[in-house]
């Protein structure tokens, strides 16, 4: 067994360094002396994992957008646009895609971006990402083309979502890395942060839990088109971006109002009135797709293995109750039964009437009676340490109690939940019946990226593990559907079956506005926070 991986390497000199001398080595930090070209931002969390392919953490994705670039990117109309790619051709039989990279692309270490780098990067992404895995199932081979700036993808059979896959906007994003890094096993972090994106990683100043620093990549050649979401020209107008960790919302509020930070990604909704009233602060929702909050039953454990019990649980819930408790301000949420998120081409309300109309209690009670529910306590995991996740379990649990369920609401921290939800154990052995989580809209906006409509069961399915082969058939059909109309039909059918099988339920769509000082301008709309285009 090899234990000399990146995780356990022993840095030279550590032994000799006393804690005190390390402390006195000094570190640049947080706020203070104003530098007009430094943008200081407080993000929604702390950047801990630097490899955006290894993990789906949104902070790692955001970090990826800073230092890496993508072949394609979605614009604000959800249309893929070339980013690193100059042009591409598709053979008449639809099996060979040849991409030509645009001129001037270079990694931060000076090496030019080649087709070999792209092939290695896409292969590594394809091992980890759900949509990437589907793409890889169609790919026969990938390689550098006739010239260094060409990338060729050979398919086994035609696949209509090649470009859509490469333009995937949220975790995991198919970022392009140097081949020497992309060849790292996808279960280990890449050892360096070298990309070809608009910012360079300042490794010396990185302190997990404190600060992450990016410097403008002076050599970056942006596209000429205007920026739109992650597409278009990534023009950097500041010298440096600092992501400052502030665990306390009140402190972040004060720091923004005092001008010590410029940008606050996700202020809590109860502080928004204060920010709205401040003429020196702009508050705006940048992500039109918002967030989807969901309830996910475990189909393996009785009585949730009975579809009627799952249906009863979902029917008991009223989205408005959940969103009133979670968000409060009706301007910041929307009743939305669409599994693939409202305001997208695949949005449909089929099967979701009780959720959005809040009239399912009688149905829930009759389903429970019909199923002969015996009062077995339903174990709902309740993460109490995450502000955006601790409310929903309480509301859902009460709704289920009102319907006749006995609920065991088990308080725990989020990381305990993350560990526990992977367990397929019985309740007696520490298993679970239900949990709630939130997704960025762009992570659930089609049947391929939406993990919850995966019907592969205990072997290959997502936590909860519904075994619904029909869902898999329809997802495969969706992947090869040639027109948007057909995709919409298939998405609606998938949603109907997912509701019929009660594999999961969206229990609301909500929006998290971003606040920034009026001293900055050009903040882009996007499902992920972007820092190019901003002037200060």
């Amino acid at each position: 067994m090899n234990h000399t991986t990146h995780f356990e390497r022993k840095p030279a000199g550590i032994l000799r360094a006393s804690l005190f001398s390390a402390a006195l080595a000094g570190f640049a930090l947080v706020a203070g002396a104003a530098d007009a070209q430094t943008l200081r931002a407080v993000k929604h969390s702390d950047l801990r994992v630097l490899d955006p392919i290894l993990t789906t953490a949104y902070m790692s994705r955001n970090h990826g957008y800073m230092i890496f670039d993508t072949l394609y990117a979605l614009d604000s109309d959800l249309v893929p646009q070339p980013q690193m790619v100059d042009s591409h051709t598709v053979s008449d039989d639809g099996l060979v895609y040849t991409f030509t990279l645009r001129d001037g692309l270079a990694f931060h270490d000076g090496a030019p971006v080649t087709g070999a780098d792209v092939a290695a990067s896409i292969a590594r992404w394809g091992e980890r990402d759900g949509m990437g895995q589907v793409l890889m199932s169609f790919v026969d081979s990938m390689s550098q083309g006739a010239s260094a700036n060409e990338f060729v993808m050979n398919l086994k059979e035609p696949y209509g979502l090649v470009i859509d896959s490469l333009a995937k906007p949220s975790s995991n994003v198919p970022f392009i890395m140097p081949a020497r890094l992309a060849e790292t096993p996808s279960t280990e972090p890449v050892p360096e942060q070298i990309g070809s994106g608009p910012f360079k990683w300042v490794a010396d100043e990185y302190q997990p839990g404190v600060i992450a620093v990016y410097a403008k990549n002076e050599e970056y050649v942006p596209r000429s088109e205007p920026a739109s979401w992650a597409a278009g020209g990534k023009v950097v107008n500041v010298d440096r971006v600092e992501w400052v960790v502030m665990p306390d919302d009140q402190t972040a509020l004060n720091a923004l109002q005092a001008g010590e930070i410029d940008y606050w990604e996700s202020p809590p909704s109860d502080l928004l009135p204060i920010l709205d009233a401040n003429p020196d602060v702009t508050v705006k929702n940048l992500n039109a797709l918002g967030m989807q909050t969901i309830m996910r039953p475990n189909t393996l454990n009785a009585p949730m293995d009975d579809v009627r019990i799952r249906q009863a649980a979902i029917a008991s819930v009223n989205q408005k109750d959940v969103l009133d408790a979670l968000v409060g301000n009706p301007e910041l949420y929307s009743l939305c039964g669409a599994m693939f998120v409202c305001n997208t081409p695949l949005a449909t309300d089929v099967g979701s009437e009780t959720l959005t109309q809040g009239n399912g209690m009688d149905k829930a009670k009759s389903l429970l009676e019909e199923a002969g529910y015996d009062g077995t306590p339903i174990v709902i995991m309740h993460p109490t340490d995450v502000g955006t996740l601790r409310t929903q379990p309480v509301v859902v649990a009460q709704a289920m109690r009102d319907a006749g369920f006995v609920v065991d609401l088990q308080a725990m921290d989020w990381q305990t939940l993350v560990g526990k939800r992977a367990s397929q154990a019985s309740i007696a052995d520490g298993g679970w019946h239900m949990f709630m989580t939130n997704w960025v809209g762009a992570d659930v906006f089609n049947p391929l990226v939406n993990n919850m409509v995966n019907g592969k069961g205990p072997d290959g399915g997502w936590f909860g593990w519904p075994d619904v082969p029909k869902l898999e058939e329809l997802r495969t059909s969706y992947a090869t559907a040639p027109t948007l109309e057909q995709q919409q039909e298939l998405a609606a059918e998938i949603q109907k079956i997912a509701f019929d099988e009660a594999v999961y339920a969206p229990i609301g769509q909500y929006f998290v506005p971003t606040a920034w000082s009026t001293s900055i301008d050009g903040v882009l709309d996007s499902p992920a926070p972007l820092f190019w285009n901003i002037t200060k």
Partner: protein
Amino acid sequence: MFGYIVQRILAAIPVMGFVALFVFLLLRLTPGDPAAILAGDTATPEQLEAIRESLGLNDPIFTQFFRWVGQLLQGDFGTSILSGKPVIELIGDRMEPTISLALTTIILSVTIAVPLGVVAAWKQGTLIDRFVMLLSVLGFSVPVFVIGYLMISLFSMELKWFPVQGFRPIGEGLGDFLHRIALPTFTLTLLYIALIARITRTSMLEILGDDYVRTARAKGLPESRVLMRHALRNCSVPIITVIGIGFALIISGVVVTESVFNLPGLGRLTVDAVLSRDYPVIQAVILLASLIYVVINLLIDIAYVLLDPRIRYT
């Protein structure tokens, strides 16, 4: 004395060993899987298994323990599971804010609280005494975060005398350092003034009734000399104990104060590591905190001898 110190240091070794074993086992028994945290939402069971394997989490628990102890004996505290940074580096980065806050708080607290306690005891039952006791009750009763927010509201947002948050190393300029450490220091100082002043007053009251104090006064010594040289010195043992433990408490983490003022100290490092199940970091900081308590207790014991000649260690 030297023999006593050696004996205490030797006695600390099994204590640290027990702490190491306890922390290690406790973490492994706590629910949560660092591999699952690292892998994110879409990892397959095979990928999770591969990550666990690369982290050594699949090894028997005692294999993991002895590997960690082996690393420790070589001075290697391991590497953070999530960030990949050496743990010693993470701790080193957090030491300066924590030590700075501890020193400024203790220095300011002792400077204010000991005279306050002496005066309160000397003037027992007067308005001064009642004021000191009121201050003490307030310091104990008002949560630190409330004091912190009030400080920020008044001195940062209204008067704009101090920045809201952040830390600047002393190496970047004494003025900037003091400017940023001031508010968190004032906040914690209120608590420590309450604690130290109360202990000082109580100890002084016991001593002031003793025969030797009456004798000193009868000799015609000035009251200040009676108070400071005869009374205070003889009641310094409990005061030193409280100061020492208070210092250790700050060093081992004042996470609320650190969060309110956004100080990147050891307290936040510990909490963040616990929440993310970053085992090597948690193990190292708890071990470090234990070591700090052991060392400070030893220093306190040595101080007893210097302050009170009646105390002898053999």
